[in-house]
C-alpha cells in the first residue's frame, strides 16, 4: 500500500470522526412547542407581533429586549434577548432566533432580522411629496 493511500484512509477516518462529533453542533428548526419539548437550543423562525408591546427601556437596561413572536405554527410567545434593540427591529418581516425555552418565555442568544423592505422599497416616491 502506498503512503498516500494510508493518508487518504486516515483523512477519511478523521472526517467521519469530525462528522460524528460535529453533529452535536447542529440543531433543527423548531417552533415554540417543539422547543419546549426538546428543551435544547434550537433555531426558531417567526414574525414580530406588532400589536403587542416591544419592551426596550435603555434607561433601565440597555441590554434587555423583550417582545412577542408568532412562530410558523401560529403560536405567540414572549421572547427575551439580552442585547440592544436593532434599529430596524419594528420593520422586520422575519426574525430568526437561536435559543431555548425557559418556562413560558424563549430566551434568545442570537437574533437575525430580515428586512427586505430596506433593500427593495416598493413605494413609488412621487415628486410632489418630496422635501
Amino acid at each position, binding site marked *: 500500500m502506498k503512503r498516500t493511500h494510508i493518508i487518504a484512509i486516515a483523512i477519511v477516518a478523521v472526517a467521519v470522526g469530525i462528522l460524528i462529533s460535529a453533529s452535536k453542533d447542529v440543531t433543527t428548526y423548531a417552533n415554540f412547542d417543539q422547543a419546549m419539548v426538546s428543551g435544547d437550543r434550537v433555531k426558531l423562525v417567526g414574525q414580530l407581533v406588532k400589536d403587542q408591546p416591544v419592551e426596550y427601556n435603555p434607561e433601565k437596561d440597555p441590554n434587555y429586549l423583550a417582545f412577542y413572536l408568532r412562530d410558523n405554527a401560529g403560536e405567540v410567545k414572549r421572547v427575551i434577548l439580552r442585547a440592544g434593540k436593532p434599529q430596524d427591529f419594528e420593520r422586520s418581516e422575519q426574525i*430568526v432566533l437561536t435559543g431555548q425555552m425557559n418556562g413560558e418565555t424563549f430566551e434568545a442568544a442570537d437574533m437575525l432580522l430580515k428586512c427586505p423592505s430596506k433593500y427593495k422599497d416598493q413605494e413609488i416616491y412621487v415628486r410632489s411629496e418630496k422635501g
Partner: protein
Amino acid sequence: MEYIGEHLLPGQLGHFFIVLSFVSALLAGGAYFVATQRRAQTDMEYWRNLGRFGFLLHGLSTLAVIGTLFYILVRKYYEYQYAWSNVSDDLPFQYTFSAFWKEQQGSFLLWSFWHVVLGLVLILRAGKWESPVMAILALVEVFIGSMILGLYFGDFRLGANPFDLLRDTMDAPIFARADYLSQITGNGLNPLLQNYWMTIHPPTLFLGFASTVVPFAYAVAGLWLRDHKDWLKPALTWSLFSGAILGTGILMGGAWAYEALSFGGYWAWDPVENTSLVPWITLVAGIHTNLIARSTGYSIRSTYGFYLITFILILYSTYLTRSGILGDTSAHAFTEMGLGFQLVLFILVFLVLGAWLWFSRWRSIPDLEKEEAGASREFWMFIGALVLFFSAVLITGATSLPVWNKLVQLVNPDYVGAALKDPVEHHNRYQLWIAVFIGLLSGVGQWLRYKEQNERVWARTFIRHMAIAAVAAVALSALNATWLNIHAWQYYALLFTAMFTISANVDYIITFIKGNLKQASSAFSHIGFGILVLGILGTGLNKEWISTNVFAMDGLIEGMGNDDLNKNILLLKQAPMPMRGGFEATYLNDTIVRQTRTFSVAFKKMDAAGASRGESFVLEPNVMYDRQFTKVVASNPSTKHYLTHDIFTHVSSLPKAELDQEFARQQEDSLRFETYEAAVGDTIFTKKHYLVLEGYTKQPVHPEYTPQKGDLAFGLRLRAYGLDDTVGYAADPMLYIRPMEGGFTLPAQVGQLQMRVRLSESSMTQLMAMEEDLNFTNFPMKEGESVLFNGFEVRFSKANRTVDHPSYLPEPQDIALAADLEITAPDGRKATASPVYLIRENQTFSLKDEAESLGLHFRLEQIDPKTGTLTISMAQAPEAQRRIPLEVAENAPRSDYIVLEAIVFPGINLVWAGSLIMLFGLALGMWRRLVRKTS
C-alpha cells in the same frame, strides 16, 4: 398609451447589445472549440481567427451594455426599473458605480467585464493554449450572458434584463397617466452602500472570482489535449495572480465589515464570507500541488482537481449568494432575482464537464511510479494541500446546510431542516486545528528539499534549523502569552505553530536565501500567515466590550446577570460614564448634516484613583436617516486606531422618538404643554421649574436646523432651573419659515429636568407680522452724524467697505457698503447695527440689519455719491409684540441619550499586516514568474 418623456432608445440598444454579446460569446466558444479540435495548421488558424473575432465582438458588445446601463444611471432615466430602484436625483456621482453593481445584473456585468479583460490578455499571451482556454472562457461567458438576457420562452424567463422598464415590472395606478415620468423620482441607494468600500470591494472581489476561470480553463485544456505538463507553468502564474486578487477582495470585505458596518468584527463565519473563502483555500492548495508538479512531476492529478474544484466552488458561491437560499442563515442581504434554475445549471454543466474530463483522462495523467520520499518537500507539501482541502470541505459542509435542507425537502416536504447552533464556535473549533497543521507544515516544508535523495546528509541541517525555529517559537510564544488571554491549551498549540512558521521562515530568508527577497515569496506568505494567526488570537481572545456599566457589575442594577452579554451602555448627554477598562465616556453633542446625524463621544482613560491619565480622544459614530427623515436606516461605527489596538464604537440604539418620526409626533402630541408669555429678562415659573428668558436671536443654532438662504428664523435663549437648584441648563427653542415649504418649530429638550420648551404657532404669525408691519422712516445722514429716533440716539459712525452681514455672500464684482451704526437707548443701553447696500450685476439690494435687544430695524436705502449722504431708514418693532409666547411641557421622556457599543480590538493591525504580507507573497511569486518568462 403614448407616454411622455420616456427615453426608450438606450434600453433597446442595451438589450440589442446583450443579445449580441450572448451570440458572439457562443460564436467565440464554438469557433475556439473547432480550432482546438483541428490538427491542420491553416484550418486551425482559420477557426482560431474566427474565435478571436467572436470574442472581440463579445467584448465590445459587453462594454456597450455596461456603457448603456451606466448612461441610464447617470442620466437618471427613471423609466428604467434599474435606475429607479438604485439612483436618485440627490445621489452623489461617485456612488453611481455602487448603484451599478448593487443589483445582480450589474454584478454579472462586472464579472463579465473582467472576463473580457482577462480574455484579451490570454489572446495576446496564451500562445498554443489560446484556443482551448478561450473556448472555456467563452462558454463561461455564454452562461453569464444568459443571466441578463431577459428572453421569454412561454412562461420561462431566461435571465433578467437590466433594461426592463419600470412600468413593465410594477403595477401602480400612476402608470395610467401619460406623464407619469414627470411625477416620479428614484429610490436612491441604501445609505449603507454609500461608502467607498462599496466602490472598491466588488470590483476587486469580482476580478478575483473572474480570474479563477483561467487556471480552470488551463486545467480543462490540459485534460482535453492530454498535454498534462505544459499547462502547469502558465496555470501557476495565473493562480498566483488569482490568489492574490481574490484574497485582497475577501480581505476588503472583512475590512468593510469592520470599518464601516456595525458588525463588530472582521470575520463572522457568515455563509457569504465562507463561500468566498473556500475557493481561495482550494486555489492555494492547487498552487502548492502545482509547485510540486512543476518541480518533481508528482501531484499533477491533484493539481487538476484543485483548479477544477476552485472554479466550481466559485459558481457554487454565486448560487448560494444569488439564489436567496441563505435567507435564514446569513446577516448579509442580497437581492434575489429568480435565477435559481439557471445558476444550478451553470454549476452542473461545469461540474460535469470537469469531472468527466478528470476521470476519463485519469489514467493518461502521468504519475511517478516511485513514491515520494518521506522526508521530501513534495510529500509534506502535498499533505499541506490535503489539509487545506480538508478545511474547505469542513467549511463548505457546514455552510451548505440550507442547501441540504432544501434537497431533503424536495423528497420530504415535512422536513424542518437543520442549522448550526453557533457557527462561530463550530468553525473556530475545527479550523483551529487546520491552522495548527498549516503552521507546522509551512515551517517544516520550507526546510525540506524536492526529490530528496540523500536524506542523511541533509538531515543534520534540517534538524538544526528545526531546533532553532522551535526554540525561537517557544520564546516568542512565551512573550506573546503575556498579553494574550489564553484560557485553553489549544490556543497555546496554535500560538506555538504560528510562531514556529514565522521563526522557520525568517530563518530561511536569512540563512538559506541569504536575504535575496526576490526568492522569498513563499517565506513571505508563510510569515504573513503566522502573523495573521497571531492577530486572530489577539482580536479573538482579547476582544473586550468596554461599554459595560461598571456599576452594574457590582449588582447595583437589577436584572443584569451574565456580564458577557452586557455589551451596550446608556450615555446621557454631558454626563460622564465610567466604563470597563478604565475608560470614562461622555456623550458631548450631536449634529445633523444631510441625512447623517453624528454623535461626538469623548473617551478619557482614568486611573484607579479616578484621575485622568492624559489619554483622551473623541469618536464620532453616526446614524443615517432615510430620505423622508423618518427612520434610522444605518448606524456607522467610528474607530480610534492605535498601533497595538483599536477602540471601536457604534450607536446601537437611540431613544425611540429619535429613531421614528411618527412615534416622536405621537409623543409630542401626548405631552401636556402649558403656554406662557415672557419678554427678555423675565422669569417664568412652571410647576416644578423656572425659566429665565435671556434673549432672542435671528441666527439661532439648533442641532436639527441647517440655515438656508431666504429663511426667516427666530430663536430664544432660555435657561432652565429646578425650583431648588442653582445650576441652569440651556434651552434654546427656535422656529423658522422657509419659502415654499412653510413654518417649522424646533423644540428644545432639557433632559436633566425632563422639560421640553417650544415656540408656539402664534409666535410664528407674530414673526411674520413683525416683518410686515414695520413702519420705516427715512433719515439722510452723513458719516459722524447722529439722529434721534423714537427716543433712541442713532449715530452713523462709519461707512464700511468691509461688509460682514449674515445673509451676504461676497462675489467678485459686488459693490457693497455697510453703514456702521451705534445706538443708545433712552435708558442708556447700547447696541450696534450695520445695514448693507449692495450693487450686483446692475441691480441694487438693501440688506436689513437690526439691534435685536432694542427692537430696532435698519435699512440702508440709498447712497448719494456726490454729497456722501446715505439714506438710512429705521423702524421700531412695537413694544407689545416682544412678549413672546412659549410652551413648556414637564415630564417629557428623556431623549438626550445614546446607547453605545464599544469594543477594544487588540492586535487588529496584526490581522491586516499578516494578511497583506501573505498576499504580497503570492503577488511576488507571480511577478517573479512573469519576469523570468519574459527575460
